[in-house]
């Protein structure tokens, strides 16, 4: 959804799908989107952690957003990886499907509704109400720090 209001702030989101839901992260935080690479599993790690990958010489930890949100892993379908920059280096988010980069006006931004599933809520910054659907904006810092709990 393109916005034409220039005076208010626009944010570009890299959007993707998990199940039927649409999510977005600040596009400035996204380094790239890649197809699955071969993973090295980490025995005894949290189930949210899928493993480690070699991204052109960088070791990147991949976590599954499905698992993080308490959903079943969708083994049959193909998935994609969104590589995001965090304070701690690169992190790969495993998502079902990649959508467009969307530029959205902050006027459509709302705080996280209480009705959102508790498991997901703390990883969410807020939502954008779009035509007929919601874009859930993720809080990368929370996602990155999930192990701290």
């Amino acid at each position, binding site marked *: 959804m393109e916005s034409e209001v220039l005076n208010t702030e626009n944010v570009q989101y890299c959007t993707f799908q998990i199940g039927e839901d649409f999510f977005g992260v600040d596009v400035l935080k996204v380094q790239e989107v890649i197809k699955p690479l071969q993973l*090295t599993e*980490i*025995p005894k790690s949290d189930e949210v952690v899928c493993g480690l990958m070699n991204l052109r010489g960088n070791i990147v*930890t991949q976590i599954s957003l499905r698992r993080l949100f308490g959903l079943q892993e969708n083994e049959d379908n193909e998935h994609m990886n969104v590589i995001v920059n965090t304070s701690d280096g690169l992190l790969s988010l495993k998502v079902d499907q990649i959508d467009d980069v969307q530029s959205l006006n902050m006027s459509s931004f709302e705080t996280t509704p209480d009705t959102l599933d508790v498991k997901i809520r703390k990883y969410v910054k807020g939502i954008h109400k779009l035509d007929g659907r919601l874009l859930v904006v993720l809080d990368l810092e929370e996602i990155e720090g999930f*192990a701290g709990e």
Partner: protein
Amino acid sequence: MGQEKLSPIVQEFILESSENVQIISTRLTSLEKDPENKDMINELYRAVHTIKGGAGFLKLKNLEKLTHNLENVLDLIRADKLPLNGSFIDLALESVDAIQFFVNGVEQTGEEPEGKFDDLVKRLLAMIESDVTQNEMMSPDSHLLDTTQELAKALGESKISDVNIEAPEVLKQVVEPAPAAAPAPAPKASENVVPIQQETKPKAAVIHQGNIPTEAPGAISAKPEPKKAQAPQKQENSITDSVVRVNVSLLDKIMNVVGELVLTRNQILQFASSDDSSELQRLSNQLNTITTELQEDVMTTRMQPIGTVLTRFERIVRDMARDLGKNIDLKIEGKSTELDKTLLEAIKDPLTHMIRNSVDHGIEMPDVRAAASKPELGTLSINAYHEGGQVTIEIADDGGGISKEKLKEKAVSKGLITPEKAASLSEKETLNLIFLPGFSTAQKVTNISGRGVGMDVVRNNIEKIGGKIEITSLEGVGTTFKLKIPLTLAIIPALIVHSGASSFAIPQINLLELVRADSSGESQIEVINGAEFFRLRGDLIPIISLNRVLNLPEKEDVDLQSQNIVVLNSDGRVYGLVVDEISDTVEIVVKPLAKQLKNLQYYAGATIMGDGLVSLILDVNGIANFIHLNLDSRREEDSLEQQFSKDNQEMLLFKVYDRPNDLYTVPLVLVNRLEEFDKEKVEFTGDQAVIHYRGSAMPLYFIHKELGYAKSGFDELPSVLPVFVLALRGTYVGFVVESILDVANTIEEINDNVSDRPGVLGTLFIRDKTASVIDVFKMLENTNFGGPDFKRTMEFEQQQSQKKPEEKRRILIAEDSPMFRKMAVKLIQELGYQTFEAVDGQDAADFLAKNPEMDLIVSDIEMPHMNGWELAKHVRNSDKIKNIPMIALTTRYSKDDIEKGRQAGFNYYLEKFNKEDIQEAISKVVKMVA
């Protein structure tokens, strides 16, 4: 003035101070915009503190005075007792110029330049005073008050507000590039920051351009030619220019790129080896050579011996000790231990603080020491060494130790913890209180140890580089700090192993050896109470399967007795890790794990392998902790006293028939093997039970019978008999017990007052219970074990013990374990000799210095302070005692060890507690001397 005339310490000071001056001036200007930034104030404070420290130790009195007061002001600002306003910034910038003046002067002449800056100091003092007078009632922080007043006195000034305006002239002369630096005394407490901002900014800019050579990363200037150095351009000649200082982050980057290169090379080598093209082979070999060379070179640019940092302390300690009137002997070991530059830089300040603390608060005044019957000369030792893939730096003093009660009191009085919390703290937790921010152990704040920068900063700095700091302290005995600095961003050799479907890297530095357990031969896996052990040349080492540690699928149809064991060393604890397959040794680049994985103690990092896949690097210490918990969870709670003690004994715990409520034990080191035998296979020759074992008939003794409990006859015993086997004089002897329980650690000494029946050596308090220690040797004496030879020894013993004391031979026993010392003493006294005891090699050497007329020295090999080999060398190189025969008693009984012992000067090398051999050898040697 050429820098070659300046000592390295002064050069270091100049470089460091120039950097700090720059930090201070940039921070000051930033602070104007962001006065609430506590981090920046702290940084500022530390930079000033560092300069003060350097000045203090180079005896630059005026600079020290100036920075000390600037530090005081900053301390008050930090504590929100003074406002951070324009007048402060002015004063601080003026001080910066003055500091730069001093530093330049030192660089040019090697001495502190003239110029006292009394006026500046006074204004700083006035600023401090303004707080003290305001807050005297509310702030009980008398330390600062004291300091201020003392300093005021030292300056010979009674009226602090009396401002002297002479100084600007001096300033103008010396700090020429900063013409604005001669300010009128700024009006106090002006909150008006904005106009001053304008004024100070250009000043800072001048400082950047004029006084401090730029140090942009990568700005590498060529070393000036000697001739050129005499040219009038003084900038080119200064130390700060002629030394190429490369920003560490650039080195890091180069290191990372080289790391990638190494990985790519590995991949190419792997690819080339599967290709037939000889040209590719040749090129890849060439690439290999070049890469290796480059890698080594880059590594060396980063590595520096830790001595460069440690030797600084010699001077610091000497000067401080003199100032304080203490006698301190500083011992530095491991100067050549190399450490990555980044790490070295990072530990420099923390180490300095700790050393200063130890000198100031750790070691007592001579009279106090004398009163506590300690030598007046206190010892401070710094020891750096590689251990478990880490560099460990130990700072130990033999001072008064830390009073735990005082720590608690102080923490409570400072409101850091509640009294209830204080009461519930363990010893270790109590000691860790000193790491809390705002906690300083100093009773009095002195110029020497600083204030509040203390241990919280030390710990933060160490943890920032992924290190750990541990403290142990015994009141009256001393305090030891242990810094563990991890291996980071280094390329290290590692062994690749496979388990489950994954491959793992094990740092070579932790690797002792690779063995293969084998059901047929000597190397067999034994199970004690569910925990597996493996006997490696007489030592029983715990083993654990990597598959089990990591919950990996167990390999199918695995033969328990035929497995690959990687023997590892984790901080001195040795254990075996069973893996499915052992592969190659390769060089790997250690990459840290993301923070989501940091809490997994099993991994030290990850690396990229030749095939491009990521492998995990195992954390040998983390895995050791895993076994630890399984084996003996109590070890975690070892008290400090226990940690101090090196007398840890491993004891095998078991039960015997007819005594269901009693616990029995023997030292594990005596036990050669644990077995279970079918009762049916036991045969009797006369009354003696024997069993066919390893190709010969092994006598079996039933411990309960030997102890006189005879209710359960042979027929009543169950069909499977647990047995522990001893090897004596080349034959095996089995002891039948009801059940083998566990292996436990103890440091307790055997209490032999309660040796109520023959066969019991005494009791031992272990696992909160009392266990009877079985004297297996006594038991064998009571039987007809050993045949005529043994009888003869017995008779000989009796003859010996009938001799009168004055005829007795004098034998010195050096053994660190109290239990074995006791046993050795007993054994030798049985032969009728007079014994003297030493608790380690050093103790023995000291004893021999006073008592050279010994007939024999019996020594253990593994001992703290001075081991058996060192003792032997010492004895052979000391005139008075070099002819005393020496016997080594040890569990280290390999060919190499025997040869090493022979070379060191031992006449005999015997396995520990092979009683007959020992007695025979002693008798032989003593006769020889006679």
